[in-house]
């Protein structure tokens, strides 16, 4: 070997250098990923059971809150007036336009994840004495979001309507959430 740098030598060295950096980076990244990914929901958390709820006892105008995946789920048996007011609402005025029909399976029951889409507080409006906000549905006291009878955002900082969980009616009055 000569100690003179021929252009060939330089190319070889560049190749070695670059491939070392690249392989090193790939190696480091493949070690970092498990460190990051372990923070994502674990298999048992993902496998959390679904919740079944019997609505037999839920009278018109009443609401219950059940737990699903550690979150409250609101189920409300709406009155005729509430249904009418939810259906009559024109879409123009809505921040997150959705018709009431898109948001219910059986118009008597509205099923919602009871978590404000702003920063995650539980809105008021489930109990009869609760403040229900200017649109009669739910009101989040944390930063003042108002939701209507369909759980749609009408006023305040929340960007979207209350989320609808996955659910299905097993019979007329039995629903399964999740």
């Amino acid at each position, binding site marked *: 070997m000569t100690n003179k740098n021929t252009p060939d030598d330089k190319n070889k060295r560049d190749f070695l250098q670059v491939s070392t950096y690249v392989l090193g980076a790939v190696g480091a990244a493949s070690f970092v990923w498990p460190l990051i990914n372990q923070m994502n929901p674990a298999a048992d958390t993902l496998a959390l059971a679904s919740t079944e709820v019997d609505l037999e006892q839920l009278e018109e105008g009443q609401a219950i809150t059940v*737990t699903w995946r550690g979150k409250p789920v609101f189920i409300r048996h709406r009155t005729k007036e509430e249904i009418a007011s939810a259906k009559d609402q024109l879409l123009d005025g809505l921040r997150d336009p959705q018709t009431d029909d898109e948001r219910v399976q059986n118009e008597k029951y509205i099923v919602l994840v009871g978590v404000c889409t702003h920063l995650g507080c539980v809105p008021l409006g489930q109990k009869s004495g609760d403040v229900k906000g200017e649109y009669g549905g739910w009101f989040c*006291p944390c930063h003042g979001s108002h939701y209507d009878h369909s759980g749609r955002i009408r006023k305040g900082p*929340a960007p979207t309507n209350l989320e609808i969980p996955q659910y299905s009616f097993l019979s007329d009055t039995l629903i399964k959430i999740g």
Partner: protein
Amino acid sequence: MSKPKFKNPVVNWIDYRLPIFTFMNHELNEYPTPKNLNYFWNFGSLAGITLVIMIVTGIVLSMNYTAHIDYAFDSVERIMRDVNHGWLLRYIHMNGASFFFIVVYIHIFRGLYYGSYKAPREILWILGVLILLLMMATAFMGYVLPWGQMSFWGATVITNLFSAIPLIGESIVTWLWGGFSVDNPTLNRFFSLHFVLPFVIVGVVILHLVALHRFGSNNPIGIDVKGKQDTIPFHPYYTIKDLFGLSVFATIFAAAVFFFPNFMGHPDNYIPANPMVTPAHIVPEWYFLPFYAILRAIPDKLGGVLFMFGAIMVLFVLPWLDKSSVRSSQFRPLYKLFFWFLVIDCIALGYLGAMPAEGIYVVLSRLATAYYFFHFLIILPLLPKIESTRPLPVSISTPIITASSNASTVMAMREKK
């Protein structure tokens, strides 16, 4: 500079092999310090001591704390009632967090008033802002650990801030939680991070001090040290002054711990966490209130989050926003005025952050938020163009000498950089 000879031969023997004593002598004993520092220069050492207090009490609390949603609240109550001196250790740790922020906020406003962030201390300042951010993260996660109502809902609201990020926001929040809501995995990781972050802070504090000792402390008149006559050795002059400040601080701290330990806390955190019910008024700890007010002032979710983080980001770039070459407010009459406006504005934001987000409070929060950014982004860059600064003294020693010899004001040249 020759190596100092220590009287003790053992010390000499060690120092020859590991020059730790030379280092300490250099940085803590003979370290030349401007001779005109006032009591606002005590808050750096107070912050360091408070950090040590937090680490020591934190480690012993961890020996009795259980990071599980079913046991966390009870384990803290057990610390309060059954563990020997547990109540004392917890109250020191709990109030220590508040005092840490009081000290650091004063330390920061000291820097703002005397222009300590200006060249050549920009990195020193940036490291300080980084320490503030790390402290906030640490205190936030620590507050979650007792698993009371405020712990839970504070954690929920703050982690949800990240859901404002477009597209990936929801996945980030799920990742932070390790589930679909704040739950046991969240508590576990917060405990782990709360344990380790203070040690990261120690690391950044060391860098902060290395940067400080490169050019030494700024001083109340903000001009550079011109020579030996402007400085005094750190020991015994400032060690004794820091010690005196510490005893005053410790007296007030102890008064809080013993006589009103829950004054700065929120009573709702003595109610166990309930994921189904949000308390009527959730407020963060007092030291987050100004930022919380900014968050709520913006009527848009993403906007609120951006402005809140922006309030700290402007501090990072402050050395480049304030272009005036004069450091101390003593020679900047207009800046001094605006400094005090900023102080009032920050206190107002803190007050508004504690008020419900309705009516007049919303309007005032918006005004105060606007003024905060106006100060940093508009006033500071424009000020040097219109402000006529007062003449600077020739050196730190000069005003004293001339005053005693009854000479008239020394008209000095502006410092040239």
